[in-house]
């Protein structure tokens, strides 16, 4: 059904998208929390900063990432010094690009759900002896779960489709950074590559469908209590 090469592209895409979305989830949640629950000077600026990867064309995001993560760049220098490694041409770099592109979508979705959480339930938890952390873990987080799930789905879908930032940042290295969209790009460069393009696109869609199905199932399980029929 799938050639060995296609399999490896699919696995790479899953790894890049999965790692990207899961790794960036805590950051996304933290940012969503700051934006939903706190007031501080410069909040609007942070909000804008989070939206940046959406507003600026992906190639520019990729270029900025390149400047930051290059061996001579501010972050790349540190990584080089501490780990003796680079993320350029590496799947970890592709995951970084996907994570950055997915971030605004995840933050918005989580923020929407956090804003809808009834604070009086958190008060009830506190009065029942739960500290802020337990309250967060047992009340806030479960009640914000629809947003977290939506964020994961949106972010993962975005990561699956991410092209411009990735190719600009970590190039198009088969087996390392050549995820599905980059493979599709390569196929598009070939005369008569349309068949391959459609095949790979269908693969993307199939993966997304499975992810969606999974998220809907989790949402249904988790929503049994909260959703009014």
């Amino acid at each position, binding site marked *: 059904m799938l050639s060995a090469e296609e399999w490896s592209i699919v696995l790479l895409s899953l790894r890049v998208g999965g790692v990207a979305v899961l790794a960036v989830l805590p950051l996304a949640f933290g940012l969503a929390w700051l934006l939903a629950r706190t007031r501080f000077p410069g909040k609007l600026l942070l909000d804008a900063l989070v939206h940046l990867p959406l507003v600026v064309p992906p190639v520019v995001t990729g270029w900025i990432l390149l400047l930051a993560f290059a061996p001579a760049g501010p972050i790349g220098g540190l990584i080089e010094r501490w780990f003796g490694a680079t993320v350029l041409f590496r799947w970890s770099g592709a995951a970084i690009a996907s994570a950055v592109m997915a971030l605004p979508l995840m933050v918005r979705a989580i923020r929407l759900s956090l804003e809808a959480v009834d604070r009086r339930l958190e008060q009830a938890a506190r009065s029942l*002896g739960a500290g802020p952390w337990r309250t967060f873990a047992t009340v806030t987080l479960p009640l914000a779960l629809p947003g977290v799930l939506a964020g994961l789905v949106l972010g993962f879908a975005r990561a699956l489709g991410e092209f411009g930032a990735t190719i600009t940042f970590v190039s198009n290295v088969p087996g390392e950074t050549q995820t599905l969209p980059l493979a599709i790009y390569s196929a598009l460069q070939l005369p008569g590559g349309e068949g391959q393009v459609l095949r790979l696109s269908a693969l993307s869609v199939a993966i997304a469908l499975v992810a969606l199905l999974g998220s809907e199932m989790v949402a249904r399980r988790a929503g049994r209590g909260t959703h009014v029929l």
Partner: protein
Amino acid sequence: MSFDIDVRRRLGETEIACRIEPGAGVTVLFGPSGAGKTSVLNMVAGLLRPERGHVRVGERTLFDAAAHIDLPPEARRAGYVFQEPRLFPHLRVRANLLYGHRKGAVSDVDGVIGLLGIAPLLDRWPRTLSGGEAKRVAIGRALLADPAFLLLDEPLASLDRPRREEILRLLERLRDRSGLPILLVTHDRSEAERLGDRIVAFG
């Protein structure tokens, strides 16, 4: 063990001030709608911060504006039955009841559940409960949290007479045996007179 409360707080147009001198047993807060009864309970529970004054229960100072003491709600050990049930919608009745319950605590889980008549509801989601059922679960949840004092905001409203009678008896027992200080809001004079060792009129 008793309350020693003197708090003040402005909410919008309303100036809320309440003073409760030490004295054991059940203190009933009695007063017209909008007088600030719920707000006082919130200040005792640590959910609303008084502008000045103090809140002491027994030996413990929960709040003292002058001494900059302000225990967080979870450290106050209030058993708070809110005016509206405030059950956790994502947890079944059983998990709601046990939310504040610590292993090895003294409270008698089965006894409380039996007395409140909520045993058949344990596996239900809160949204499927009737008004009175939800209220009873909320009472159970507060009692099972092993509280150092009780804050009850109209706990018996929307309960039928037999239930009400049983819960009243439970409260009396708690007062008499464990000496648990209780702050009770009610609009029912007979309830107030029966339970209240002191009645604080309000507003």
